[in-house]
């Protein structure tokens, strides 16, 4: 598979009154086309910082972002980016929220609506198209936000803890739903989460990250065949990966204690 996104020695440092804070240690990361890749790590490991860099919203202190081999450092509108909050505009209907990306790109509103409507109906928002976001549940709002990101029509989408605020039940449903979307749309997905189990269940590969400074500790391939039933979480393979992840994630804390 060709490389879709390549981070070439990307490092981010912030100058604070107390000195220089290294948010992300210079790192390399290659993401192949069509893969589902997760970044797992504790708070403050620079996951969101990396996303902002890839989306062009934060200039890196060093290094380059390559998309399709082309230098895309500091350019916006190249990737779909879903932030932690759904950020639906309360004065727009669900349909008009979902077409925001196309609208900003200059597509005629009517054509954009025509394109979005069947997708809303297919992906679980039938009957909600003309409602305003404040009458939607958390899961539904998240669906709308994700569809907005998908309909922006970029090959790469970045999802920053999209299910972090949902209850356990809804979260499981949303994971299945996301898997369906991913297999239908064939996008390259980069997914940030705190939840190790979620990452293993969804991903082709996981990058486990550590803090202070933010860095990639280890990359783990998830070779579990798809489609993956829920019961996959009980298999020895899954449990072994999970244990490995937990070991990596608790490691820095142990070092600090020692």
């Amino acid at each position, binding site marked *: 598979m060709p490389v879709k996104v390549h981070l070439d020695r990307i490092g981010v440092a912030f100058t604070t009154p107390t000195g220089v804070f290294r948010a992300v240690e210079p790192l390399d990361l290659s993401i192949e086309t069509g893969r589902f890749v997760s970044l797992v790590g504790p708070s403050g490991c620079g996951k969101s910082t990396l996303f*902002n860099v890839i*989306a*062009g*919203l934060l200039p890196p202190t060093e290094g380059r972002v390559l998309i399709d081999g082309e230098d895309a450092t500091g350019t*916006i*509108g*190249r*990737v*779909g*980016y879903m*932030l932690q*909050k759904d*950020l639906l*505009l*309360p*004065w727009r209907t669900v349909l008009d929220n979902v077409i*925001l*990306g196309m*609208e*900003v*790109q200059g597509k005629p509103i009517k054509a954009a609506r025509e394109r979005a409507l069947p997708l809303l109906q297919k992906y679980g928002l039938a009957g909600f198209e003309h409602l*305003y976001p*404040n009458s939607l549940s958390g899961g539904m709002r998240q669906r709308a936000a994700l569809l907005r990101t998908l309909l*922006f029509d970029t090959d790469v989408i970045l999802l920053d803890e999209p299910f972090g605020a949902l209850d356990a039940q809804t979260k499981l449903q949303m994971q299945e739903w996301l898997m369906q979307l991913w297999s239908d749309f064939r996008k390259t997905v980069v997914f940030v989460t705190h939840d190790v189990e979620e990452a293993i269940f969804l991903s082709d590969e996981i990058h486990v990250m550590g803090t202070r400074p933010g860095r990639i500790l280890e990359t783990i391939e998830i070779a579990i065949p798809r489609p993956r039933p829920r019961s996959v979480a009980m298999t020895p393979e899954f449990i072994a990966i999970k244990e490995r992840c937990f070991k990596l994630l608790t490691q820095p804390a142990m070092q600090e204690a020692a």
Partner: protein
Amino acid sequence: MAMSETPRAASFRPLDVTETAPATAVSPAKPASRPVRRLPVQKDWPTWAIIATQVGILVGIIAAWEIAASTGLISAFFWSQPSAIWKTLIVFFTEGDAWTDIAFTFRSTIFGFLLGTSVGSLFGLSFWWSRNYAAIVQPFIICFESIPKLALAPLIILVFGLGLSSKVAIAFALTFVISTLTTYAGVKALDPDGEKLFYSLGASRWQVFRKLVVPFCLPWVISVLRVNIGLALTGAIVGEFIASQHGLGRAILYAGQTYDIALVWVAVLVLSTLAIIMYATISWLEGVLRKGTRQ
């Protein structure tokens, strides 16, 4: 009975709790008495009863005034009386300049209101474009806000003349700053993540302004409409007090100077009616706009 007669020094029996504190601690028999209190309940009167009472009070006040003035309890010269006010009201509308005055005050109020609110809101929104510009301009606005604008009224009259424009200018001065500051508060309340979303979609600054900043700040703009209509009316009246050919403010001043107290009351009455109508219209408009912006 028998127990209460036992000497106190020897009594540590559970029931004898009248005097000794230690006995209370071990006494399970008699719980400490609490005041029994029920939830206060207020019964709502039907709407007709409320309205009837209000009408009754109003009629009572007017009747008392009329009687007090005709019996000489209060001076009819200084206070006038309802019957005289009524006669003057009819004369004011049939033979006087009622409609000219109303139209004049109404026009200066509305022009001042529209101009002050729209220019103020646009000015407030403009601060989104540059933090440096906002930081530079802000102290000047605070200064202007702290000036009692009505104190500037004589100056404004000198600059803008006796006509409509000076009244509009005073109404503008009163409404402009409030709109600016309130809209700017809206700009400051904007979630930076909202802007981030737009920029991640490749939006231009103009698109962010039009599609995010303006609709987001609209509720703030709307929230000052009612305050501003009242302020604009105050500005127009004060302008007329100082120097004017027309207007309800001028009518009040003129009537006062000629000791025509009944006419003062008539003009105040007409002015209040005008204020109520404008206030009700703006409240209605506010409701419509709020629905439109889903806030």
